[in-house]
């Protein structure tokens, strides 16, 4: 009996600290972009269909702090308004493509289809494309914030 207790203590010392650190880091914000608005170019340069733009900014990745690409967004004009969609498919996180011929977004992985306004039209995606908070300055410069959302749920939750 005593051996079991002592053995259990030894196992605790060996097992709990590694597991605690491994599980603990899962709760950290290890990958993060800047909080502010990031530039996307000029409104004038916007063409007919949505335009794909790379978002870059000061990013944290664990111990690293670097200027890096955060991801891509689609900048679209919708009824006179500028809208910015994350290119990440809300289904399982693939990157969607703009299909100019069909005027729709297609996800190459599992076939989700979204309209030019981002609304889900078909396929497994549980919700429409995720829209990012965007603004246009008086000089016509478009900018947006970089947010990521939980995949696979009908409700939109910021990660």
């Amino acid at each position, binding site marked *: 009996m*005593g051996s079991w207790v*002592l053995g259990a203590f*030894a196992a605790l*010392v060996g*097992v709990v600290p*590694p597991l605690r650190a*491994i599980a603990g880091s899962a709760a950290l914000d290890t990958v993060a972009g800047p909080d502010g608005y990031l530039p996307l170019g000029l409104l004038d340069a916007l063409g007919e269909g949505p335009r794909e733009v790379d978002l870059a900014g000061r990013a944290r990745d664990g*111990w690293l702090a670097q200027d890096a690409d955060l991801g891509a967004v689609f900048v679209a004009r919708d009824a006179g308004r500028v809208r910015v969609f994350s290119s990440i498919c809300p289904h399982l996180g693939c990157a969607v493509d703009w299909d100019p011929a069909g005027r729709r977004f297609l996800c190459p992985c599992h076939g989700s289809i979204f309209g030019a306004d981002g609304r889900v039209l078909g396929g497994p995606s549980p919700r429409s494309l995720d829209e990012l908070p965007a603004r246009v300055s008086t000089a016509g410069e478009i900018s947006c914030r970089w947010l990521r959302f939980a995949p696979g749920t009908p409700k939109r939750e910021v990660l």
Partner: protein
Amino acid sequence: MAGRFRDALDARLGHRALLRAVLDEPVPGGARFAYAPGSVVTALLLLQAATGTGLAFFYSPSSTGAWASLAYLDRSVPGGALLRGLHHSGASVLVVALGLHFVQVALFGAYRRPRELTWWSGLLLAAFVSAFALTGYLLPWDQRGYWATRVATGIAGSLPLVGPALQRLLEGGSGLGNLTITRCYALHVLVLPAATLLLAALHLRAFRRNGVTPVWTVPEGAPAGRFWPDQLWRDALLVAAAFALVMALGRHGAPLQGPADPSGHIEPRPEWYFRPLFELLRLLPPGGELAGTVLIPGAVIAFLVLLPFLDRAPDASPGRRLRPLAALAVLGLAGIGLLGRSFWKDAHDPAAIASEARADEEGRRARALAAAGVPPEGPLALLHADPVERGRRIFDRRCAGCHGPASPEQAKGPRLERVFTPAWIEGLLREPDDPTYYGHTKARGSMDSCAGLGAAKLRLLSDFLAQLGTHDGPPAALPPELSAGRAAFSDAGCEACHALTPGEASAGPNLAGYGGVRWIRALIDDPGGPLAYDGLNGMPSFGTKLPDADRAAVVAYVVSLSQ
């Protein structure tokens, strides 16, 4: 139900017979704590494997990522510092347990025929533990690990004939860098664990073949105890005690000095268990290194390997094995003596103490800077980009010769610890010609002591002067809360020599913005200029000696001294 399940499992695994074979071992003369050290070593090796696996989840083996990933683990990951602390202290306790195991083996004569294989595999296992320690020491890529490894691979490189090739093999190329880290990492987490596992299996198999070496007092044919449960609980108790010790030593984490800096100044020290070898090298006269690196250690190893043949006593009682035991005792005591001497010398060597304190302090500052993230260029780039850190490096090389860190008696310029703080200024006002201030400078005797003003006035004046750096403008623009100090400045007659208006010449240094960025910068650029000490300054004009950015960095550092 449970019984049927166990029966079914046994029919498929045969685990009962296996367990019986493992646990039902006869222990001659009954179980004893003295038989436990081997089990403690085994358990500690397993603990190192467990904590090391945890560390591998976070460690990034590269010259830019290694230090940064561990600083991150220490600072940001819950329980990360503890995890690193356990792995670090586990290594130390393992070495101690290994030492006790050796004492047990020596005392009981367990290396003797027919247990030569157990002995030799044990020696090799101890060598593996050393290799674990050497490869693991480098992995944090901090100053200590970097410089100690540089010395270690340098020793390898100095060996006759094979040296240079061996050094390149160990370093993975022509110097310490990424390939050294990946090499040490692969050895530390893949090769050595696998080799240790195989060799430990051989060691245990050979051990079980002949059983534990009984204490010499146990007569032949005495009734034997059983490993399970008599010996096992004793082993478990000592294992638990060893783990508790690992916990106690490692609960505050492991040291992490500043990041490896090939241009830094550090007196490398190995981990404590390599101190005997380190001290042996330090003791040998110049030119005698080979004795410390090859000849003496080689002779000791040869003696240990040949020990089963040298000890030919008819039985294992220590009384009949005086000579081999005496030789082993001399070796052990020499090791402990060298270990003690090494630490004793360091503890009484001001240079070593200062070096250690500086390294700790540098590590603390580097970790604080790294909290905001380390750039892809690595932690050293982070330090170089920080004006205060950069200024400190330049100051240490260009300014410290006169402004410290030697004793005030030797310094040629004023001491700058906490310079421009009210306390520092008050000291200056009281006794300008103290060696801390102008005592060893050309300005000696040029300023009168203000000690006669009395403590209250002095404090008011010092506080006023300490504020000038943040109110760098004409006297009329000074905020109302400084008016009392301003009045004291006039009352004390300071204005006779010291102008307060920017750009206005006066007999003594102009004090507009005193202790602020502009004032310090002007002083560094032209210390003997009309607005500064006007010829009464032996300090070189750095305006032409240092690039602009370097001077700005020195100013940032001097400003940081007052904070």
